[in-house]
């Protein structure tokens, strides 16, 4: 910046003084006049330059806006932890053979998964994404995939490990859940959710109404598939889904979906109590076919969800499994499996279940929600094996309230009455939870 006074003084000194300066007073007057003149000229000059500068700035190219972190990928981390009060011991859903990926059961203070996400465009045609769940002594690759950006005509292809597009909640990571824990339905079906190692093709129809079709071919190494089932040439699991959705006026929008999953598990391991009450390991080989139907309805006054909004979500499934089951248990403890003549027999199940939940944000930052889970163990036939035939309908009520100081942080209290395990008295559960997101965090899907 200019220093007008300094310059003026310098200039004044440089000016030749009139030789016949009459008096000091005249000199002072003259000096003041020169200084005023200089100040005026300087101001004019400054104004002209500033105007020119403004003009230039208007026409100068502006750096491109929206970008990631220069060439670094967008990096995000989700911190999650909870305090849970509940009955001790593991709780299995009665009548359902479950996978091992079941976190439920622990209580007290605990740190949940820390989810590290990395995402970036790979080149003009591809985008890459990874979600690593960090646990004690382990890092699980939840997702790691590439997706096409520019195939056009409504097509997109995803490859790698990704959350399957079947159902509605399946593509949500735990931090996006509206409740502190998973629904019984997803627990029973997949443990947490179904991740496919494979390829997904989606096509969006060129219609005014949202109409999307997708198909996936995968390894089928995860429940309801199994490691051995995935070890083959070809696909151990395939799935297909269709979604339709639209708006109703400005205020409401909905999406409905129908999905099918077929897996070929081999030696799939599950733990059940045998007729003697001793824990047995079963190994199942055969076919597992699941139908899922989902529906989501969202409402906000004028379609402006910031202050108030409501979300209703429900899903239903039906699963048939047929094949052979093998039963192994500990004879020393009096396990019944080893006593039988046959430790292997035909096995088939026909089971179903559903949940429905509503979450209402009644004022900025505050939400409350209610969820009801119900499963039907249906027909479970273990043949001649000494395993209990199931006749139970697990259910669960969950009530939650959460507070979000900003869209990057959330604290939640959940009370639940869990009747998913037969014979175990009602388990009243209370959970306090936090979910915080730092760094880059992309928007969630509808």
């Amino acid at each position: 910046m200019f220093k007008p006074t300094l310059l003026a003084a310098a200039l004044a000194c440089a000016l030749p003084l009139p030789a016949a300066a009459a008096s000091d007073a005249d000199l002072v007057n003259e000096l003041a006049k020169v200084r005023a003149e200089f100040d005026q000229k300087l101001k004019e000059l400054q104004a002209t330059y500033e105007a020119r500068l403004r003009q230039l700035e208007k026409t100068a190219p502006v750096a491109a806006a929206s970008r990631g972190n220069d060439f670094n990928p967008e990096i995000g981390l989700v911190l999650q932890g909870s305090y849970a009060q509940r009955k001790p011991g593991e709780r299995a859903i009665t009548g359902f053979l479950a996978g091992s990926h079941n976190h439920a059961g622990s209580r007290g203070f605990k740190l949940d998964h820390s989810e590290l996400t990395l995402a970036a465009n790979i080149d003009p045609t591809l985008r890459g994404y990874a979600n690593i769940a960090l646990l004690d002594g382990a890092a699980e690759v939840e997702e790691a995939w590439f997706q096409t950006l520019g195939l056009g005509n409504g097509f997109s292809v995803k490859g790698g490990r990704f959350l399957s597009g079947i159902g509605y909640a399946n593509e949500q990571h735990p931090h996006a859940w509206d409740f502190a824990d998973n629904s019984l339905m997803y627990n029973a079906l997949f443990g947490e959710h179904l991740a496919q190692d494979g390829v997904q093709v989606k096509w969006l129809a060129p219609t005014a109404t949202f109409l999307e079709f997708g198909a996936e071919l995968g390894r089928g190494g995860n429940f309801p598939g199994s490691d051995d089932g995935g070890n083959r040439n070809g696909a151990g699991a395939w799935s297909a889904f269709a979604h339709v959705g639209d708006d109703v006026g400005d205020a409401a929008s909905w999406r409905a979906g129908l999905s099918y999953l077929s897996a070929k598990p081999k030696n799939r391991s599950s733990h059940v109590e045998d007729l003697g009450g001793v824990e047995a390991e079963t190994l199942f080989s055969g076919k597992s076919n699941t139908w899922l139907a989902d529906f989501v309805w969202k409402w906000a006054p004028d379609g402006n969800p910031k202050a108030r909004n409501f979300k209703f979500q429900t899903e239903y499934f039906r699963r048939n499994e047929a094949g052979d089951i093998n039963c192994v248990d500990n004879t020393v403890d009096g396990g019944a499996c080893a006593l039988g003549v046959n430790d292997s027999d035909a096995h088939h199940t026909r089971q179903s279940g559903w949940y429905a939940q509503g979450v209402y944000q009644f004022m900025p930052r505050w939400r409350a929600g209610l969820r009801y889970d119900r499963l039907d163990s249906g027909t479970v036939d273990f043949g001649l094996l000494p395993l209990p035939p199931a006749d139970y309908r697990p259910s669960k009520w969950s009530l939650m309230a959460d507070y979000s100081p900003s869209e990057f942080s959330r604290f939640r209290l959940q009370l639940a009455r869990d009747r998913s395990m037969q014979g175990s008295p009602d388990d009243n559960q209370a959970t306090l939870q936090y979910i915080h997101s730092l760094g880059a965090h992309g928007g969630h899907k509808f």
Partner: protein
Amino acid sequence: MLNRLVLIALLLAANTAQAALNVLACEPEWAALTRELAGDLARVSSATTARQNPHHIEARPSLIARARNADLLVCTGADLEIGWLPLLTRESGNARIQPGQAGYFEAAAHVRLLEKTGIADRAQGDVHPGGNPHLHADPRNLPVVAQALARRLAELDPANAAHYAARNQDFQLRMNAAIARWEKDAAPLRGVPVVVQHRSWSYLADWLGLKVVADLEPKPGIEPSVSSLASLLQGLKARPARMILRTPYQSPKPAEWLAERAGIDAVELPYTVGGSARATDLFGLFDDTLAKLKGGLK
């Protein structure tokens, strides 16, 4: 019979050849600007309404379907739509509207942004380090964006380049004349101290010389709380303001609470096209904005 069929087929073919560009604007102001420049040659829809906060909508199925069929997206950029636009383009399966393609237009890339802090610390709230995205609230930005958008339309639809150029020229003349009229009209607003709700009004204040003395939001994007409003009220005693400005998509409650206690007006400005009965296009938007601001002075 065959002749008639051929004729119908030809007519249909001619129809598709002349088919309008399908334009999805992220906000109503860009839908209005596209209509000014393209007229009948574009089918224009807006992803948001004036009653929806453009930071906070979802990539709903209906929007994905519209993005799937769009030839051109006209959005603000500067991270305003960061929560939903990237999902929309990715889920659309539409190669034409991916970032970097001709069908992806961001207004913010063509004007000088205010509040370009470069500071990306969320302790400061929901900040936009690349600059304030509410740039359409200064109408002097509109001819600049129009210039770039007209070029883009011509690039996508070269057959009608002359049409877009002519309409752009007409728009430039009308808008510049209107700006001169508004600036004369708004002279009494210069230096008027105001309270804003969110930095939605930085460009308007910059244009009209309004003095923003306080923000209802304690930090950008953070909802005002009772305690933050109380301390604001205290601050207004030392530095009084003439009115409180808010958009139609923000809850009137905090502004009314403060207005009542500070004894000043809470003014709902249209913010964008469709934000009030008079704001039917970009010209009506500023006619009504100025009328309401001057009403707040009385």
